[in-house]
């Protein structure tokens, strides 16, 4: 995309100066609508919610504060951490926080390994089997999450396929439905397409000539992967990793359908505390706990993008 810049400046003379990304207010104005939408309906509610979690129950938070039970109100003007203290001393929350982090790490590692494996296979060997594999990995993109969760639930249930199949072989296969194993399976299933698309497209961009040169210099498979391919496709791999992790850490549908009542992931707890237990403040505190984790991952994503922009000489 950036490669075309220099040649254009050379041949197009004065017009290209004007047509390169020009500093004009019209761009700012065109870009404004989606940004305003996000500011009003995401940014503002998040600020409001932060206030609510700190015990500010006036203004727009009034309705929620009246409907909700067990709301900690701030008596001073500085807010109170009472809701955070309550949630973070709740053993169930701490267990679920641990479960959420564990599921996120395991699912992300599995997804990225699978996507890397498929991507490398496609890059280094190619052929029909490799295309079949990458096609398979994209199938979940076609299926709404509600359906896939339900399908996975019936597949690994007490009378599901896995149990039936192994019963014919005389083996007692464990029931995975309503366990954290099913949640991890479901998370991998739903996250695989995006990671595979991202990583295969990143790996395909590595020039064949470089791999060829490394091979001629005597590098083995592992060496080529670690020293040539992975560093060159580093940015897409980081993007795939962060998006997968952010998706899993805040997920609701997959753990809601596939997981046990307790312990389960925080997405389910948030929903339960809001609707079933009618404790919106505690629910919001949990949302911020997940948000802090996701922000850390988002920072990694942004850093990776800036790094790639710098490498291309754009920053």
């Amino acid at each position, binding site marked *: 995309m950036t490669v075309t810049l220099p040649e254009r400046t050379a041949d197009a003379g004065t017009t290209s100066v004007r047509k390169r990304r020009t500093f004009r207010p019209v761009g700012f104005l065109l870009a404004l*609508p989606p940004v305003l939408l996000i500011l009003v309906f995401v940014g503002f509610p998040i600020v409001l919610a932060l206030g609510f979690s700190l015990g500010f129950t006036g203004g727009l938070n009034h309705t929620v504060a009246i409907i909700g039970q067990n709301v900690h109100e701030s008596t001073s003007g500085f807010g109170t951490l009472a809701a955070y203290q309550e949630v973070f001393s709740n053993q169930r929350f701490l267990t679920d926080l641990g479960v959420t982090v564990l599921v996120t790490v395991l699912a992300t590692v599995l997804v990225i390994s699978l996507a890397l494996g498929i991507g490398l296979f496609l890059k280094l060997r190619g052929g029909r089997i490799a295309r079949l594999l990458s096609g398979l990995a994209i199938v979940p993109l076609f299926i709404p999450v509600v359906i896939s969760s339900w399908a996975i639930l019936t597949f690994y249930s007490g009378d599901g396929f896995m149990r039936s199949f192994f019963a014919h072989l005389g083996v007692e296969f464990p029931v995975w439905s309503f366990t954290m194993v099913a949640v991890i399976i479901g998370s991998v299933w739903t996250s695989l397409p995006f990671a595979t698309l991202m990583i295969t497209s990143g790996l395909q961009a590595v020039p064949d000539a470089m791999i060829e040169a490394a091979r001629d210099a005597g590098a083995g498979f592992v060496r080529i992967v670690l020293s040539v391919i992975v560093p060159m496709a580093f940015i897409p791999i980081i993007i795939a990793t962060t998006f997968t992790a952010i998706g899993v850490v*805040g997920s609701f549908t997959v753990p809601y359908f596939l997981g046990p009542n307790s312990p389960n992931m925080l997405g389910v707890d948030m929903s339960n505390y809001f609707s079933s237990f009618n404790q919106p403040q505690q629910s919001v505190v949990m949302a911020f706990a997940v948000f802090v984790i996701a922000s850390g991952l988002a920072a990694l994503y942004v850093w990776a993008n800036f790094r790639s922009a710098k490498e291309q000489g754009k920053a």
Partner: protein
Amino acid sequence: MTATVTPRRRKSGPGPAVMLLVGLFVLLMTIFIIGPLVWLGLHAFSESWSYPNLLPSSWTMRWWQVVLSDKSLGVAVQNSLFFAPMTVLLSSIICLPAAYAFARHEFWGRRTFLIGLFATNAFPKMGLFVTIASLFYALNLMNTITGVLIIHILGTVVFMTWIPAAAFAAVPRSLEEAARDAGASKLRVLTSVTLPMAFPGILVAMVMSFLASFDEAQGTYLVGAPVFMTMPTQMYSLVLNYPNQVAAVFSILLAIPSVALMTAAHKHIAGGHLAEGFQIK
């Protein structure tokens, strides 16, 4: 270079052990990915099915009648078919000009804007909907079409901005300039050069947005239920209140638009437009 590429692939012909491992991996992946879908699909036609049989012992179309004659399910289908196209339309109007600006203009806060849009992805959806709900109470948007549409559009902003922005940026500017030099007006360049060339990326964004709206369940449930039930929100109650087979039939119905659209756009999605859109430039 081409001369060296061809022998490379033949030189390292895989041994039988490697082929066996690869075959095993393909088999396991097929069971892992396709297995649950086939298993669920079979339930839609099963009359009776006892463990541990691998197929139902008798077949029926009864469950399809149950679903197709159910009024509330029909309404859910109608609602979904209204909200999803409306979401794509409104989201296009809001986001496509911005995508063009991100690709073609440099302006104050450009990078900040791009990353700011990302905030919708970083904050957990469930937490976000909980916080939006309190704002919607105050603005009287609960149980309104506008409220549901806002929730759906929020879920499409990232797709609708990032992916077309990458597509616009990939249109060679020399082509646009050549058209200008040949006397085409700015509008003509946009409609005859830029838009057609960026179309595959825009199409991918539209398909992803349609599906995001079509699949959105948590937010719609919180803001729209029980007045506006869509297919996925209906699915939540189906799973709890109806026999397994009804949910299976409904799943197949719910999957039809997704599969059709995805198949239509598959070439472009796998062709890298989706991946390209997620790299901030």
